[in-house]
């Protein structure tokens, strides 16, 4: 049997119950580690596991011993509350106990490789792998866009500076490279601080990931602030009949069903304005629009031709339906903020768009990335400190593995490319 894999097998963020599935060699010990429960084929039992201090989660555990299971390996299915934080904590615990995140389609792939699925289905397996890995690829690239990816780049850059010196000290000790261990250690400390900070902050990053950023945007005076206020259920934003009321973005946390949503009200976009302060506000609106998971593009009958010219992540909203009808063929939600008309439908649509297919993949992509950072952190934790002549071979090993883990988040570097970096740093040759 192969190393255990773990994944949430129900769509994330939806439904009252989530099922976490594990399959592989370590399943029995993982179940014991989580619930102090003996793994009995064909049984379903209720037991508790502690996910954080003072917080126990009650789960239903179904056990299937290989080969009489879906994958042909030992399999356990753990049903828990459909809360993303609980699911994540549970997956993390499984990983601590020896599992790894499943690749897209990996359960089915294992089933196939263990002869649990017949030949005719193999095409379907490949389709599944391709489809879900397609989604996973999109999700992975989404996950590394923005600050997270930039931080990974920065950290890798620092790590490679250390590695260039460490590796050179081994492979090119007979050359005129003058490698200074003081310098190695000072670079190593730089790197370690940065990685430590990042590791601590990544929790926060994950939380931000599982939240969703909705930006209300559009021309001035169409009722953006009014919509924001209704959705958040409080008078967060000032509403007046004067164009350009909102200047600085206003931010509120709201809950739509089980989704955490951050909603932003922005300054109306008015290309003609001469007002310097309003212009600054509009710049801020634009940058928020860029980072949004979903944009509510609000118009009214006076601004019906307005468009942000974006194809993705956009929901068109026609406001003030109490005084005029939307243009023919308007595709979007028609509401009246004043009379609170159709607001339920608006919420429903927002929910649908945010919890669409991508979320689950994105969530697991980020989980995988987070585990990679953790692994790199563990490597660095066990790297000798300070690095000196005697331990440099071992240090090189830990640093290389950290590079592999972090590199896996974006693009791994081949040994040959790495040598190239060394040669462009040092003058080496006969």
């Amino acid at each position, binding site marked *: 049997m192969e190393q255990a894999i773990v994944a949430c097998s129900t769509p994330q963020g939806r439904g009252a119950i989530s099922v976490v599935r594990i399959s592989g060699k370590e399943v029995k010990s993982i179940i014991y580690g989580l619930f102090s429960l003996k793994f009995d084929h064909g049984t379903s039992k209720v037991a508790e596991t502690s996910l954080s201090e003072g917080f126990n989660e009650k789960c239903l555990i179904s056990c299937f011993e290989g080969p009489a299971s879906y994958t042909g390996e030992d399999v356990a299915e753990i049903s828990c509350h459909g809360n993303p934080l609980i699911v994540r904590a549970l997956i993390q615990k499984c990983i601590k106990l020896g599992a790894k995140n499943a690749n897209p389609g990996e359960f089915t792939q294992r089933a196939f490789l263990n*002869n649990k699925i017949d030949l005719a289905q193999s095409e379907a397996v490949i389709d599944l792998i391709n489809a879900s890995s397609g989604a996973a690829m999109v999700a992975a690239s989404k996950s590394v866009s923005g600050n997270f990816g930039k931080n990974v780049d920065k950290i890798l850059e620092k790590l490679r500076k250390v590695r260039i010196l460490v590796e050179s000290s081994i492979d090119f000790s007979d050359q005129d490279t003058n490698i200074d261990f003081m310098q190695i250690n000072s670079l190593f400390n730089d790197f370690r601080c940065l990685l430590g900070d990042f590791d601590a902050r990544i929790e926060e990053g994950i939380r931000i990931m599982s939240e969703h950023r909705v930006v209300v945007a559009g021309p001035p005076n169409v009722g953006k602030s009014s919509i924001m206020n209704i959705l958040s259920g409080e008078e967060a934003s000032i509403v007046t009949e004067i164009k350009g009321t909102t200047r600085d973005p206003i931010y509120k946390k709201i809950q739509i069903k089980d989704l955490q949503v951050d909603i932003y009200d922005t300054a109306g976009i008015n290309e003609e304005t001469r007002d310097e302060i309003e212009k600054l506000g509009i710049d801020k609106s634009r940058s928020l629009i860029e980072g949004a998971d979903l944009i509510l593009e609000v118009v009214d009958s006076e601004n019906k031709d307005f468009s942000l010219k974006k194809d993705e992540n956009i929901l068109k909203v026609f406001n003030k339906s109490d005084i005029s009808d939307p243009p023919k063929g308007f595709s979007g939600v028609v509401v009246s903020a004043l009379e609170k008309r159709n607001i339920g439908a608006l919420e429903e649509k927002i929910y649908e768009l945010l919890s669409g297919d991508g979320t689950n993949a994105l969530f697991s992509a980020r989980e995988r990335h987070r585990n990679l950072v953790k692994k790199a952190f563990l490597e660095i934790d066990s790297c000798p400190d300070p690095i000196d002549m005697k331990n440099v071979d*071992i240090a090189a090993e830990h640093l290389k593995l950290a590079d592999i883990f972090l590199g896996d988040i974006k693009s791994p570097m081949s040994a040959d490319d790495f040598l190239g970096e060394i040669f462009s740093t040092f003058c080496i040759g006969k």
Partner: protein
Amino acid sequence: MKADVIVIGGGHAGCEAAAAAARIGVKTILVTHKFETIGQMSCNPAIGGVGKSHLVKEIDAADGIMARCADRAAIHLKVLNSSKGQAVRATRAQADRELYKKYVQKELKNLDNLEIVEGEVTDFDIQNNQIGSVTVGEGKILKAQKVILTTGTFLNGKLFTGMDNNEGGRVGDNSSKKLAAKLRSIDFSVGRLKTGTPPRIHKESINWEILEEQKGDVPRPTISFLSDQSIHPEQVSCFITRTNEKTHEIIIGDLDRSPMFSGKIEGVGPRYCPSIEDKIFRFKDKKSHQIFIEPEGLNSDLIYPNGISTSLPKDCQEKFVRSIEGFESAQITQYGYAVEYDFFDPRELHETLETRKIKNLYFAGQINGTTGYEEAAAQGLVAGANAALSFLGKDPWTPGREESYLGVLIDDLVTLGTKEPYRMFTSRSEHRLILREDNADQRITEKAYKAGLVSEGRYKIFSEKINKIIKEKGKLAKLFLRPEDEKIYSALKIKEPKSATSFLDLLKRPELDFYDLARAFSIEIPENDIVFDIETNQRYSGYIKRQMDEIEKMKKNRNAHIPSNFDYSSVKGLSAEITQKLSKVEPKTLAQAWRIPGITPAAISALMVCLKRNEKETADKNARGSIREP
């Protein structure tokens, strides 16, 4: 004339290939230009160094000739990284060129199954994509089952000094034009690479007094597992000097007359072995570069200034050399030059180094895009062994990258190819802590013995060493330091142990070494190599275990074979780009497919499923077939 295996070229690849085939016991002919240039070191008079010495020790572990000849020719020996951890130690020897050649020639002469033919191979006979014979000189035909080509830098070789160039394989030798033309007519992918060599200087013209001396190590290391210090000839020192700003000024002033910089040479040179003009151009901030002054031999009048390889014009070489401290009145006896030559894309080779296009034809050495004697010899060994094994109808011997640098070298070449002359570095291996110099015999000898490469004598010595290690380890596992043994732990200056701890476990602590422990326990100390082995394996045991786990995984993928002629376009869902990459490399195993840049995990999964399906289909068919035929 007829042979089972013919080797073309008496360089480092050719000698090792011929010797390997002959050791396995097939009738072998080595055809080379001149008997007297067999085993010639075309460039620097040194063997070994980090990464390279690992290859040489592995060759030795398979009973190859390079290490023992190097020991007999070694006039200055050093252990590199000696102050660093055990895992990265490496041996390097300055070799007396003449002695080295002499011992290589002697080794070859002494081989029963080997015959040496002088002459230039000018043609091949190829029919149905299979090689049948080679033509020597004007028409002497040699028939053979297997042919190994190891012609080094000779194919369309061109030598450059300044704006002059002429044809040649190296100084004093003609290039192989006819054979090169023949090879170009077969559709191999050909490329051009270049490398260079520094001017040689007359010993007497150097002002030795002012130079910094560097002595060899005492005690002297040996390269071969079977050698001891007594076979080394007389030892001499190396010296060190440096370039200065004046040198750099002269060189910069003449860059427009450099064949490299004026674009005359198209071949790609190695990034790590740049010429002095390259170094000065690329590292403008560096005011001085180090030069190792290496003796060419005990009876040679020449020295090799390591660090100033160049193809600048002769007058410029004179000027810049004389600007260097100690070289003020240096006499150049042979000018530096660059050589540009044909090489073949090694991705068109099998792991046995047989070409994919022409059956029974093998390529080894510099023609596969590598540089260095050790890299050449390593390929020669593998090609020679496999040509002989295949002739005998036996299983191939293809060391994996998880067990050897031989494997790293060949796997890198056949799966990744190369854009510049490929040289070995330990950072190319994923398993540096396991692939050490000291355990090359434990990684190689057993399998090489099974392949028929290793003499009974060596195998016996090896087996005895292994038995000793096992016995010694067994003893030390049962030797305990107990809380009551105050005398021992105070002698070791360590704290009282909480519970009984074995000698072996104590070795895991970096502050304790074998000798101190042995003294404290007052036990007899075994031979140095046994101590080194036990100590190193204990010290790195955690890491070794971890790497072994990785290796297990790797082996699994290495065992997942992809049939030759596998149709990648039949795998649904592979992108056109990935299909193309896989078809070009034709990986033999899933492990190789993994290492091709740009191959995604999803592609590997899809491939894995597809392979499994094909396997099942054939199994089902066979099952049906056997029902019909009772």
